[in-house]
């Protein structure tokens, strides 16, 4: 900065001094980068709500209520019993149909979570579902006496089974809870009708949950009582033929890992949440095998932390704030839809089910997943620099617990507070520090800049009024005194430089004269 200080002091400081910083190569850490012009939360609109594939239907929960209609129609046909599992449940056409069935004398059984379980579920509920907990409790009161409700914090699977013991057994599994908005398309979800043999396996899953895992039950209004985990001799729990997580059974985890490990060229994983468990390791291995891995998930801090090294390893990780569907598709040949997240809770200790898919149904699912990819505008990149971004990012906080939405700007100009030294020689040594950049970045949580220009007015010190001149033989500049302070008076930068030594000897400040 010293090079520009020549000639008259006052003239040279008429304009602010400025410094330009290039931040385009700054490391922003792991970020979700939004490549679109929107806010990254466009809802998925399928070509159709119901995809038919042989006897089976793949249903996309949407505003037309296709999922509700399918379930309600099924429940209305019930002749003996209806079994429902859903972590969270809310009054809807579906629950009305259940109560109506109960009124007809149909045995209706529900596995769900109780209030305390819901409060403990830190990561399993979509944000707005948390606000539905009161509705859930109110609905259980409505069920009391009419529907037999059993609860456990593990009851995360979501399905409806109708007359599972009859030849006309039917059922639907879904990735969403039985709450109104997710079943109406507010999330990215998928549901699937079940074949008779699948219903039987789901029923065995339900029986294990009911008789072995439940810890409370609601027999009468207001009486959620503890459950004795005794199974009557006559009760048979049946056989699980489909991958599941229940009790000591971890066949779902084994199936998911098997699909990932056997993927040759292409792998798609979708889930609400991931952790650094067995799936994570298998994905990294697939990346090493140069399998083209695509992960669709929710843009959350937990997923960011869990998947950043997958992204670094080459996996393409895309995010959507409401992606809740859980699928695995490998090489377009094998896959499954499941109720579990890719976490230990879903694959090791929970209560989850899945339907393995192949053939046309898998093709349908793959097409749907490609549609989901189309609305997943966020791309997880491990080491993002401002130069890479032209839009917004979700930046993982240093402690890994939150994501901050920030916009990347090409350049930024900021004024610093004026610099007012008490001696002109200090201006010669003044510069705008890099620390100022860090301070600005820290105080601005919404923006990231590629280039920042910092400007600052410099106000030189002037001789105070009322100062009296003092005779100094060896000093070639006028010297003044006011009180205990001495002042050496100059007009140009050259004089400032020349006055430095005498001023030091006199312990005087260098100031501009009038």
């Amino acid at each position, binding site marked *: 900065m010293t090079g520009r200080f020549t000639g008259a002091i006052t003239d040279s400081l008429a304009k602010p001094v400025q410094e330009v910083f290039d931040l385009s190569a700054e490391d922003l850490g792991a970020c979700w980068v939004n490549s679109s012009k929107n806010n990254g939360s466009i809802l998925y609109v399928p070509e159709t709500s119901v995809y038919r594939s042989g006897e089976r239907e793949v249903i996309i929960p949407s505003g037309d209520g296709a999922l509700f209609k399918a379930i309600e129609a099924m429940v209305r046909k019930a002749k*003996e*019993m209806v*079994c429902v599992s859903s972590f969270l449940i809310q009054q809807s056409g579906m629950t009305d149909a259940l109560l109506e069935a109960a009124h007809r*004398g149909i*045995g209706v*059984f529900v596995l769900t979570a109780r209030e305390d379980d819901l409060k403990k579920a830190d990561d399993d509920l979509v944000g707005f579902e948390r606000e539905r907990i009161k509705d859930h409790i109110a609905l259980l009161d409505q069920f*009391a*006496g*009419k529907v*037999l409700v059993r609860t456990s914090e593990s009851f995360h699977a979501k399905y409806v089974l109708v007359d*599972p*013991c009859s030849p006309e*057994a039917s059922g639907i599994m879904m990735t969403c809870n039985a709450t109104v908005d997710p079943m109406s398309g507010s999330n990215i979800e998928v549901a699937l009708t079940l074949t008779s043999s699948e219903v*039987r396996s789901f*029923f*065995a899953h*339900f*029986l294990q949950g*009911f*008789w072995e895992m439940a810890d409370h039950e609601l*027999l*009468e209004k207001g009486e959620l009582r503890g459950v*004795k985990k005794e199974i*009557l*001799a*006559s*009760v*048979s*729990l*049946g*056989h699980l033929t489909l991958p599941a997580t229940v009790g000591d059974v971890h066949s779902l985890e084994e199936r998911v890992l098997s699909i990932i490990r056997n993927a040759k060229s292409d792998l798609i994983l979708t889930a609400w949440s991931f952790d650094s468990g067995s799936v994570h390791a298998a994905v990294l291995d697939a990346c090493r095998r140069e399998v083209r891995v695509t992960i669709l998930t929710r843009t959350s801090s937990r997923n960011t932390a869990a998947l950043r090294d997958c992204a670094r390893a080459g996996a393409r990780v895309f995010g959507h704030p409401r992606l809740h569907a859980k699928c695995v598709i490998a090489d377009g040949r094998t896959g499954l839809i499941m109720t579990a997240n890719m976490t230990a809770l879903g694959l090791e200790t929970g209560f989850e089910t899945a339907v393995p898919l192949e053939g046309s149904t898998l093709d349908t699912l793959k097409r749907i997943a490609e549609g989901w990819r189309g609305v997943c505008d966020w791309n997880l990149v491990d080491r993002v620099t401002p130069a890479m971004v032209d839009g917004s990012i979700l930046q993982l906080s240093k402690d890994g617990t939150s994501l901050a939405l920030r916009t990347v700007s090409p350049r930024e100009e900021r004024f610093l507070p004026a610099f007012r030294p008490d001696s002109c020689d200090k201006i010669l040594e003044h510069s705008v520090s890099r620390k100022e950049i860090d301070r600005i970045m820290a105080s601005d949580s919404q923006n990231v800049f590629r280039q920042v220009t910092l400007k600052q007015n410099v106000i030189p010190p002037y001789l105070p009024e009322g100062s009296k001149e003092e005779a100094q033989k060896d000093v070639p500049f006028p010297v003044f005194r006011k009180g205990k302070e001495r002042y050496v008076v100059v007009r140009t930068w050259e004089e400032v430089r020349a006055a430095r030594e005498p001023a030091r000897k006199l312990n005087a400040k260098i100031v501009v004269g009038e």
Partner: protein
Amino acid sequence: MKDVILKRRINIESYEALMDVGRFKDEYKFLLPVLALSEEGGITEELVNTRLFDVNADDPRGSRLLEVMVKYRLIEKRAVVHEHIFTYSQYRLTERGERIRELFHNGQYDQVDEELREKFSELQILNRRRLYGFEMGATYTYTLGPLGMQIFSSSEMLPESLRDVASELVTLGILEPQQNQNETSDKVHYELTETGRRALLEGQVPVPERGAFVLTGTTDPLFVEPVIACWPKEGGREIGQEFDWIAKSSRNKDKSQGKSQKQEKNTPAWLDELRRTAPRVLTLAAQDGKPIQIIGIGENINQVKPKDSISVHLRLSLRSPPDIAVIRTDGKKGNKTVVETAFNLTLMDVMKCLFREKQYDFVECGNAPTLLVAYDEVKGNPSEINRMQRTTTVHAPEIQEFGRFDDVIVSDLPLLPRTLEDAGNWARDCLINGIITYTDETSYSQLCDREAARFSERFAPEQVKSRLPTYQEMLTIVKERRETDPKRYWFVTAPALLTFREGM
């Protein structure tokens, strides 16, 4: 069944009089070893001298001590003579008298002709006490009174009072005149009096006192002994242990026992009886059941206001005979004493009294009075249905011969069905109520067995079980009652539905 406790406050009367009373105290325990000789070969001068005084058998100290104890009425002298005839100054027992003496000695009062017993009772030779029983009518027990003991047990000179009855006894062939006969016994021994026996039992010797005492008594039939308390009069002079007065008292006994016609009219029968039969040892029900010896009661008797109130708790239990707790309350604190009661009815008798209208519905079952009831009587009462017991309050119950009591709660009165049909309906209710958890066909059958055996003391379980609903019928029942009893609906239907059926 829980114990039944009948309570009431009892009517009492108190009278004060100058009395000779022996209160059992520790001061003269040194006499107990002498009394104990009665159990070790008999009380004789020889044994007292050799065993207790360790002196020669004929030492005069033995006879002196025994004479004093005779005066204290702890022992009485018996003379054994060659002819084995009890000799009095002017009369002796006839052969009939001897037989009666033997019978009385063995406690075989009922072997004596009833008419003679009544006569003896009139002459106050025998004490007569009426026995109360639920279905017994009036019967009596007899004990030898003090006068009788002198006639049939004592070898003392015939007292003056006996002369009044001697002619009667001669007429009855009990005594015969014995003129100028002056027999001596070879050997003298002593036997315990009632007081002596009691002293030995209590481990204390009654210490005679003379003073103003207040006697409290009751005519309540629950009490064996009508005199229930005897206190020194408050502020009255209480005379300490005086032995000499006994002799004086004996000399004046005829005076103290005789009473004016006027006085007899103003005092209750129990007091008159006591005066007639004194000296007597009483157990005082309202004074911790402690014994007291009433030796004599003066002529001037005044009724006073009782200072305490007395109530009784008559406990009737399956496990023990009736007992009565006497609660004395002096206005501030209560004192409870359990004493002997004249109440001799069984719990069954009492139940029949308390539930008079149902007295023919009581049966004894497992040693307990059990009420037979129709199902309709209990069907709306889950507690009675399930526990087979009834708890109820009986208002102002009255027990024949023993009067009326306060309201009483009868707890856990056992109930049984009256008929097999009642049993079937009852067991059906219990069966439904017994379904308190998930039940399948097997556990339902076990439940049926359990409920059918509920009335096994009265009906064969198989008979009852045949009247219970089958598992399929129970499924229908719980479905019909689903709205009102959802719990049992689930307990029965869930296991039937929520099971993996092979061949599905």
